[in-house]
């Protein structure tokens, strides 16, 4: 039996995969909360880019975005990257995530690049970078996750 999660499902082009996510009517609440928009998919490189519109409600007393919400944006990107890497047959709950906060991020536009370092049968390793509206790197994260078929979650 093959461990490839893409088994018998037809593989979509990057453009079709992107459209599928952009037009999805089944967005989870956390994606809307974060103002998430998938804007690039590169399946061969196991890489995606997401755009965010970070609301004021995520700011801490200094006016900058509270670190956990930056982690939420990167978790969102890394998780979606896993789903796409499995050709939308699997999901991968995060086991552990480490985030470095390099600069402060103010509410508004931001984008996150996420990439899968290894997509294995029992573990996935991911990396993400978050950039502010000027393209400055504000945070970097690494994470491990547990790939599992979609239906086992429900």
């Amino acid at each position, binding site marked *: 039996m093959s461990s490839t999660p893409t088994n018998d499902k037809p593989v979509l082009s990057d453009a079709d995969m992107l459209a599928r996510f952009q037009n999805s009517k089944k967005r989870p609440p*956390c994606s809307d909360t974060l103002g998430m928009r998938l804007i690039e998919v590169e399946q061969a490189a196991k890489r995606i880019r997401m755009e965010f519109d970070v609301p004021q409600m995520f700011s801490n007393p200094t006016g900058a975005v509270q670190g956990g919400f930056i982690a939420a944006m990167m978790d969102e990107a890394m998780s979606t990257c896993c789903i796409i890497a499995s050709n939308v047959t699997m999901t991968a709950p995060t*086991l552990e995530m480490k*985030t470095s906060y390099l600069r402060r991020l103010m509410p508004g536009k931001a984008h996150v690049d996420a990439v899968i370092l290894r997509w294995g049968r029992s573990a996935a390793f991911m990396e993400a970078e978050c950039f502010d509206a000027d393209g400055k790197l504000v945070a970097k994260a690494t994470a491990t996750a547990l790939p599992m078929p979609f239906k086992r979650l429900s």
Partner: protein
Amino acid sequence: MAEPDQVRNYWDQILNADELPPATAFLGFQLTSIDVEKGRCDAQFRLPDAATNPGGSAQGGFITAILDEVMSVAGSVVQPPPAMSPTLQMTTTFIRPVPVGERLDARGQVVRKGRAAIFTEGWLWNEDGTLLAQATASCIPKSLAKP
């Protein structure tokens, strides 16, 4: 050095205010207690539906946000107020799914307060006391006092 009572009063006022900082309010924060001597903050949280992931539980980043709140307060109360402790790096371990809309208990604890660095730990439990998530972080002490 500020007296423990003075520090506790300062933070009690901020964290029990009618209008909490937006991120704190989003997480459904309610202060339980601050222990200035131990460098500890205990608080209750209740995540809104807006934090739900496709699996029906809380998205990991919001769990990190909860732990960041209590760990940052713990890192702040070991300094003379007004002060904060910006997080440099934080690692969160997601031990069990975290429910949205239910009461959660969190603790932030200072492990070491140095002159230039503060190390903190955090835990998140459900109402039954089952451990759901854990975190460690390194921060820097930052005084907000006017020179």
